[in-house]
C-alpha cells in the first residue's frame, strides 16, 4: 500500500533504515558509515554532543555491554569508555529485559529539565556529562543500548518516542552489517538448506534422507557441503550459523 507519509519517525531522511517498511528493510545491507551517519542525525535533532552504541554480549560468554560504535569508530571515544566503565550489572539486566529509556543528569542542567518531562524514562545516578540511553533489541534476542550524551539535550515526550523508534531501526541495521567476506562466501543451495532445517528440527541423517527421498549418503553429503560453505566446524555449528544468518527460521 502506498500512503503519503506524515512526519518523523517514518520520514525517509529521519529514519533511513525503517522508512521503507519491514519488507524492503531486510533487503538493504547497511554499512557502518550509514549507521554512524544516522546516529549523528539523531544527535543533531536532540542537540546531543556525542553518542555511543552498545551491544549486549551473548549470555554466558561476556555478560556485559560491549561498545559497538561511536563517532570515533573504529576506536572508542573517551565518552564511550567513561560510560562503559560506569555500566553496572543492573543496567545490563535492564537492557535485556526492559525498553524504558534511562537518563542521568545533574539537577539544574538543560538536559535534566528536558528529561524530567519524560513520563516513562528512568533516572540513574550518573556522572556528567548528562545522557539518555535507549534500550533496543533486534531479531533473535540481540539487545543493546543507544546512548546520547550532552548537557543541553532537548527532547519532548513525542520526540523521545520518535527517537527511540529510530534507535530500534538503526540497531536493527547495525545488526545486519556483515563483514565483506560473508558476501563472497558460496551460497548454500536450496537442497542443502532443506537438510539443515530438518537437522535443526531434530532429525537424524536417516530421517532427513527418508523425508526428502534421498539416500543417507546424499543427505550427509548435503550437510557436509553446507558445513564447509558456512565455514563451520561441525553440523551443530552449521545449523547455528545458518539460523543466526537468517538463512531459515
Amino acid at each position, binding site marked *: 500500500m502506498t500512503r503519503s507519509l506524515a512526519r518523523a519517525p517514518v520520514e525517509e531522511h529521519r529514519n533511513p533504515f525503517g522508512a521503507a517498511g519491514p519488507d524492503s528493510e531486510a533487503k538493504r545491507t547497511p554499512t557502518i558509515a550509514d549507521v554512524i551517519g544516522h546516529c549523528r542525525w539523531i544527535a543533531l535533532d536532540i542537540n546531543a554532543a556525542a553518542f555511543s552504541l552498545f551491544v549486549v554480549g551473548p549470555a*554466558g560468554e561476556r555478560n556485559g555491554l560491549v561498545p559497538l560504535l561511536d563517532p570515533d569508530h573504529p576506536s572508542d571515544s573517551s565518552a564511550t569508555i567513561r560510560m562503559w566503565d560506569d555500566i553496572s550489572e543492573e543496567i545490563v539486566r535492564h537492557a535485556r529485559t526492559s*525498553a*524504558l529509556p534511562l537518563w542521568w543528569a545533574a539537577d539544574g542542567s538543560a538536559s535534566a529539565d528536558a528529561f524530567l518531562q519524560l513520563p516513562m524514562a528512568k*533516572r540513574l545516578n550518573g556522572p556528567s556529562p548528562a545522557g539518555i540511553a535507549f534500550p533496543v533489541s533486534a531479531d533473535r534476542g540481540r539487545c543493546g543500548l543507544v546512548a546520547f550524551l550532552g548537557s543541553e539535550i532537548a527532547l519532548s515526550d513525542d520526540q523521545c518516542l*520518535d527517537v*527511540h523508534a529510530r534507535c530500534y531501526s538503526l540497531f536493527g541495521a547495525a545488526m545486519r552489517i556483515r563483514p565483506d567476506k560473508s558476501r563472497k562466501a558460496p551460497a548454500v543451495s536450496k537442497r542443502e538448506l532443506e537438510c539443515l532445517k530438518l537437522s535443526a528440527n*531434530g532429525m537424524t541423517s536417516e530421517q532427513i534422507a527418508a523425508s526428502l527421498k534421498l539416500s543417507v549418503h546424499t543427505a550427509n553429503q548435503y550437510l557436509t557441503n553446507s558445513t564447509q560453505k558456512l565455514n563451520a566446524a561441525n553440523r551443530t555449528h552449521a545449523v*547455528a550459523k545458518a539460523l543466526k544468518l537468517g538463512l531459515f527460521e
Partner: protein
Amino acid sequence: MTGLGYQTAFPAASGKPLASRGDLTAFLMALCQRIGADSYMLVAVLHDQHRSDVRIVASNWVYDAIQVIGHRTIAAIAESSLAAPPGTRPQAVVPSRAMGIARVLDGEQCRMLDVLGHGEIFPLRLNVGRQQLYLLFSTEEADRLDPAELTRAQMRCCHALSQVPDLLAATTQHDPLSDRERECLHWVSEGKTTDEVAVILGVSSNTVNGYVTHAIQKFAATNRVMAVATAIRSGII
C-alpha cells in the same frame, strides 16, 4: 552511573504506573482512543517443535472474529514479514482487498474480518529486551490511522510492557536453562566439541555432557543440534 533509581511513573495520562493485567487492558484501550483505532490485540507467539501457536495477552476483538481466523492464523500474520519491527513503517493489511495476506487468510476469512469490523489491520512487533510480542491495531475503514502515531503507540506499548516484567515473562516463552547449561549450549553452537567446552569452562567432559543433556531434556529436543536450534530460535543464546 550505579544503581537504577526508578523514580517515575507511567502512563502519564492516567497518572499511575502499570501494575496488573487490568492496567494493561486499560492502557491499550486508551492507546486505541488516542490514535483512533477500534480494536487491539496483544499476542505472544509460542513455538513448539514444528508449529507456531499464539497466546492472546489482551484483546478487545469480538470472540467471533478470533474464531473465524483462528489462533494459528493470528500467529502466521504476526510472524509474517507484515509485522513492523519498532522503528519501521507500519504496513496495512486490508482483508477486503486480501492485500498482503493472501497466503495466510482465505477469501471467506477475509470477508468475515471485514464484516466484523477489521477493515484495516496493522500488525506491529514489540521488542522489549529479549522478549518479543505482537500488537494488532484495527479500524473499521481503511486509511484512518496516521503511521507516525502508530509508531509512537508501538513505542508507548514497549514502554508500558517494560513496567509489567512478571506478566511479560509469564507470557512469552521463558528461558528454562541454568547459566551453566546456557553457557555450554552457547559453546556447542560455536562448533566446540564436548572436550573443547570442558577445557573452556574448566570442568570435566562428563559434566559438560550432563549440562547439554539437561538442556536437551528441558527443550524436549531429540538431540544437540535441535537443542541449539531451539535456543537460538527463542533468543536464549
